[in-house]
């Protein structure tokens, strides 16, 4: 069994210690820098794809995946501090739960997986008004805002972020990613609230942000 499959099996067993031991052993041989690109990213992508396609992973298992990712990022960060190295970042992005939404867990996991991919994540927390999302995006130069909502009623509040982006003349420049349980049940909701894209789960959000960032750059560059 290869390293990615071994990691996935340990995540399936909700075995955080086993995951870390496995990853540490691999990194001792191949180095921590390659751990993210060669092991963690592909394994998380596989879990995300399987979770979307067949629902065979649980929130608890994905939470373990997020904790293991945090553990690895923590170890790499301390090593970089010691060696004064700096990994090039992909750029700043903004995430948060829309006004009146207080379901933080999914958003926090999204933040973890985005950081692992090299994004500088500005997490605004729960119950965030549309103006605050767009203000922050403009302040930090983010091309993607990720807005989360769990319920149908709060999902409709995301429309206000779309309106705020458009009214400031930022259409296309700032891309709106939307997500949360309700978007899986009602896929038409993405268009209804003015989203530029969605992802079926936290693990595949980094891929969505890559695509939206490129789309933003492309729109700005023109035809």
């Amino acid at each position: 069994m290869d390293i990615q499959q071994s990691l996935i099996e340990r995540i399936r067993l909700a075995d955080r210690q086993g995951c870390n031991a496995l990853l540490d052993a691999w990194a001792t041989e191949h180095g921590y820098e390659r751990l993210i690109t060669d092991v963690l990213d592909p394994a998380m992508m596989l879990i995300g794809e399987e979770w979307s396609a067949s629902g065979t992973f649980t929130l608890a298992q994905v939470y373990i995946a997020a904790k293991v990712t945090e553990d690895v990022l923590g170890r790499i960060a301390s090593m970089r501090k010691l060696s004064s190295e700096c990994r090039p970042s992909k750029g700043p992005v903004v995430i948060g739960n829309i006004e009146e939404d207080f379901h933080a867990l999914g958003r926090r996991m999204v933040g973890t997986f985005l950081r692992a991919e090299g994004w500088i994540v500005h997490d605004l927390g729960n119950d965030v008004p549309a103006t605050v999302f767009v203000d922050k995006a403009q302040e930090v130069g983010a091309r993607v805002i990720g807005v989360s909502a769990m319920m149908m009623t709060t999902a409709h509040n995301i429309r206000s972020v779309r309106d705020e982006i458009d009214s400031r003349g930022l259409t296309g420049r700032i891309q709106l990613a939307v997500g949360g349980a309700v978007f899986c049940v009602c896929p038409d909701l993405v268009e209804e609230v003015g989203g530029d894209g969605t992802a079926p789960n936290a693990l595949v959000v980094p891929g969505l942000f890559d695509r939206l960032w490129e789309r933003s750059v492309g729109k700005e560059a023109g035809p």
Partner: protein
Amino acid sequence: MNSTERIMATLAGKPLDRRAIAPVLGLYGARLTGCPLDQYYTDPAAYARGQSAVRETFRPDVLCAPLAFASIGAAFGSELVFPHTDVPNIRRPAVQSVDEWDLLVPPDPDKDPRLLYFRDAIRLMAAEHKNQVSIAMVIPIPADIPGVVMGLESWLETVLFDPAGTQQVMDKVNPFYVRLVNGFFAAGATFVVMPCGFASPTIVTREIVTAFTRPILAQVLAQLRGPVILHNVGAPMLPHLDLLTGLPSVAGVIMDQRDDLARARRVVGPDIVLFGGLDCSTISEMTAVEVEDRCRAVLEERRQDARFVLGTSGPDVVWNTPPENIHAMLRAAESFGSIDA
């Protein structure tokens, strides 16, 4: 038959004049009466008026007592927020970590006003409707209660990584829970519906259900003085349903609209009532004709099932659902006709 007779006959597997219907319309009562939600979810009389309006408008066979899990968290000290068109939610949990449970004293179900709200609402509804309509109280299973006190993330972390802390928390929650729920029965609840978050196949593994959730359920449900209906918590329930069979007090299961009801019947056996039909969120996006067609399809599929109730899965039917969509459920049940035992 009146609604109570229809539900009781369903529980007993006896013939019915028509299928019972049980859309979850707790929240919808506020829309019908125009009651602000901060009042609706704190004033038992305002809530009971909303349910009277629900009964008068839609004639469901089950009325729901307040579905407001966050208010249980508030009784422990969590800070609430009242959205304009949805049930209360938690702005800030009462505690942040398992260590803080040491000092936490569970609220007294006989004295805490936020808990008495539920009981008083049930009492008022029972006084007005009990002989005609069943009254369901909805409260999460005991293993989910810490989530409204410390937040889901902290609780998940505790369950996954701290068995001793988990035990310490549940030692406080379980006796509180038994007193609270038995108080609901004493006030007039016909049955108690329990969303099973920590048994859901979308949330936890089979190992967690087996080692953690089920033993707690077995212990707590044995102490309850009334029937319990297990609930899907808005996600497919079938993959873990076998882990929830044979528990004391359980009279029924509310399945998710994506679950295969025939398979569910095979898993739970002939004596358990199955509820199923429509999703509480998507019903707002459908036309009345689509709702009626979907209901008729479900009713046809369960034609031979004596113990089946047409209902909605997930939490409350959402606020913006057109009334004609809810009327369509009853119309489907009425036009479908009687059910032989």
